[in-house]
């Protein structure tokens, strides 16, 4: 701190230097604000907080199911704002053993007279269990198009990890289905419709 005094360049030059540093910090912090978006996703992915389940699970060496434990997995399905589809789990809940792969189905129907695309967003509770809930196949990995009046059964294949903390005996998986608009427009503008509907 003392050398600030000792070697003092002309005020004009040191002002320019201070402005330079400050402007650089301002730009850096502005960028940091945006960097928080991917950082947050990565952080949630690693820690499993916020109930964000991760993407497709590649099964590893451990395949033997732990028959001594039974975990109850419950399913919830709800529609996002303005979404007219019928959307519900075929089974409300299943009992599984950690390590075994289980398939369940969700039913979706487009009762309107337009072709539509839906996107399901998962959330797991308690969030502590998120890291131990693996999906090997899920309709939520892709958008789901349904033409007018069409219905479908959408599969979910999941494995509850053997390392699930012993105090957790029940997991609840909730899906919210969002309207993604018309099939061709769906890829480019994913959110416009929901916003306009509720603006």
């Amino acid at each position: 701190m003392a050398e600030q005094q000792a070697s003092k360049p002309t005020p004009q030059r040191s002002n320019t230097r201070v402005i330079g540093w400050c402007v650089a910090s301002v730009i850096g912090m502005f960028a940091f604000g945006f960097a928080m978006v991917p950082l947050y996703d990565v952080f949630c992915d690693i820690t499993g907080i916020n109930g964000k389940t991760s993407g497709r699970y590649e099964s590893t060496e451990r395949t033997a199911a732990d028959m001594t434990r039974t975990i109850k997995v419950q399913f919830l399905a709800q529609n996002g704002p303005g979404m007219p589809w019928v959307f519900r789990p075929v089974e409300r809940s299943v009992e599984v053993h950690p390590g075994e792969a289980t398939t369940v189905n969700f039913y979706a129907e487009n009762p309107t007279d337009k072709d539509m695309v839906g996107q399901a967003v998962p959330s797991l509770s308690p969030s502590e269990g998120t890291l131990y809930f693996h999906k090997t196949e899920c309709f939520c990995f892709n958008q789901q198009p349904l033409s007018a009046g069409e219905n479908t059964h959408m599969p979910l294949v999941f494995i509850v990890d053997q390392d699930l903390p012993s105090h957790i005996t029940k997991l609840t998986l909730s899906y919210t289905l969002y309207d993604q608009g018309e099939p061709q427009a769906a890829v480019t503008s994913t959110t416009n419709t929901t916003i306009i509907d509720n603006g």
Partner: protein
Amino acid sequence: MSAVAGTHAQDHHHGPARGISRWLLTTNHKDIGSMYLIFSFTMFLLGGTMAMVIRAELFQPGLQIVQPEFFNQMTTMHGLIMVFGAVMPAFVGLANWMVPLMIGAPDMALPRMNNWSFWLLPCAFLILVSTLFMEGGAPNFGWTFYAPLSTTYGPPSTTFFIFAIHIMGVSSIMGAINVIATVLNMRAPGMTLMKMPMFVWTWLITAFLLIAVMPVLAGVVTMMLMDINFGTSFFNAAGGGDPVLFQHVFWFFGHPEVYIMILPAFGAISHIIPAFSRKKLFGYASMVYAVGAIALLSFLVWAHHMFTVGVPVAGQLFFMYATLLIAVPTGVKVFNWVATMFRGSLTFEAPMLFAIAFVILFTIGGFSGLMLAIAPADFQYHDTYFVVAHFHYVLVPGAIFGIFASAYFWLPKWTGHMYDETLAKTHFWLSFVGMNLAFFPMHFLGLAGMPRRIPDYALQFADFNMVSSVGAFMFGATQLLFLLIVVKCVKGGEKAAAKPWDGAEGLEWTLPSPAPYHTFSTPPEVK
């Protein structure tokens, strides 16, 4: 002192220009400081009027005066105007006036930018206030503008609100750069960093906080803008975004922001208490380090605003302990102020009254902050009037009493006249009683479960709300007295000596009162 005064005689183009261009084009730190202070007081009255509307509606249960939609606009605009329009510009105004005088500099380092950063503010607030008259009304989502309330469900005027935030952010950042450049480059010879007055120290650290977090605020409102108008999904779950992310980014700005609003007051109080105790400030170095520690810790505690959104236990513990840790440097500061007064030769002029009230009442606000920091208990207090009581206790007798104390302390230097001490003491006592009547019952209301930002309430809350409203009206009306005192003091009054307070120390008191238009054209020597 006479040597300093003598240097002005050689200055050929001294004295301000005439007419409106003096104010539009001025690069003089005293003019700009005065404009900041006048602007801030105007906004204080405007935001205060909105608070009166809120308290009038809450005077009785049921809906009397305004509709819930308008009530929400009032709470939002009251918060935004008080934070960004009243408190922050007041401190920038004080910095403009006092930092050059305290470090022996002729002006701020970047005078033209100084002018620009001031004149952006009226533009920003013109835009913000104009949203009240737009179709769909003003922003109604609370000053914290959480997504998706402010994105998916916000009124059409939200885009104007975002633009206003951008402009005032640019203004704050330029003000901060100016303070940093001035303090680092323009100190009088001999004034090392550890000889700087406390107000200069606290402002230097505040300026660093501003540089660090205002861009993050600009970033978060930019993301909102893109979500609303350009179809991105930063905060929209349907497109893969996350509303909780908004709260993380917002509070990463928001928590340092609350220290931005209090640190300069800490600095001013550290001048006023020694002056009226006729003793040196106790523990100068520890004061400097305490402010630095508070500033650093302020970046590590943001999630304590978000315990109820679902933070893992480890996270709750971390943010809880980090928050509780802030009480240590704050405690050091309170201890030092009390130790400064201990065995001092105290007199109780208006600045000292405000300063003592600051120490006591800010500490109460700090303690309720500690209660809120305790994660398991916070679930009970969250979004209740207890939170409202807490932050009004740190902001009203904290930031605002700090500003009043500074204003009375330096008014003789600014105007050359003494203010009316009797009126000033009346202003203090009415403010003190009114403020406590208004905000203390809110603690009880919050603990009993009254939610914030709701225009109606259950019958059992009626009595405390009535007391609170009466106190608020009293506090609000009293501020007109402050206006009267300042106008009276500007127009005339007893001539102020160069150093009207015998215990006061610092370079600003070596100048005549009122401080000449140009000061320290030749830097003073600091030993």
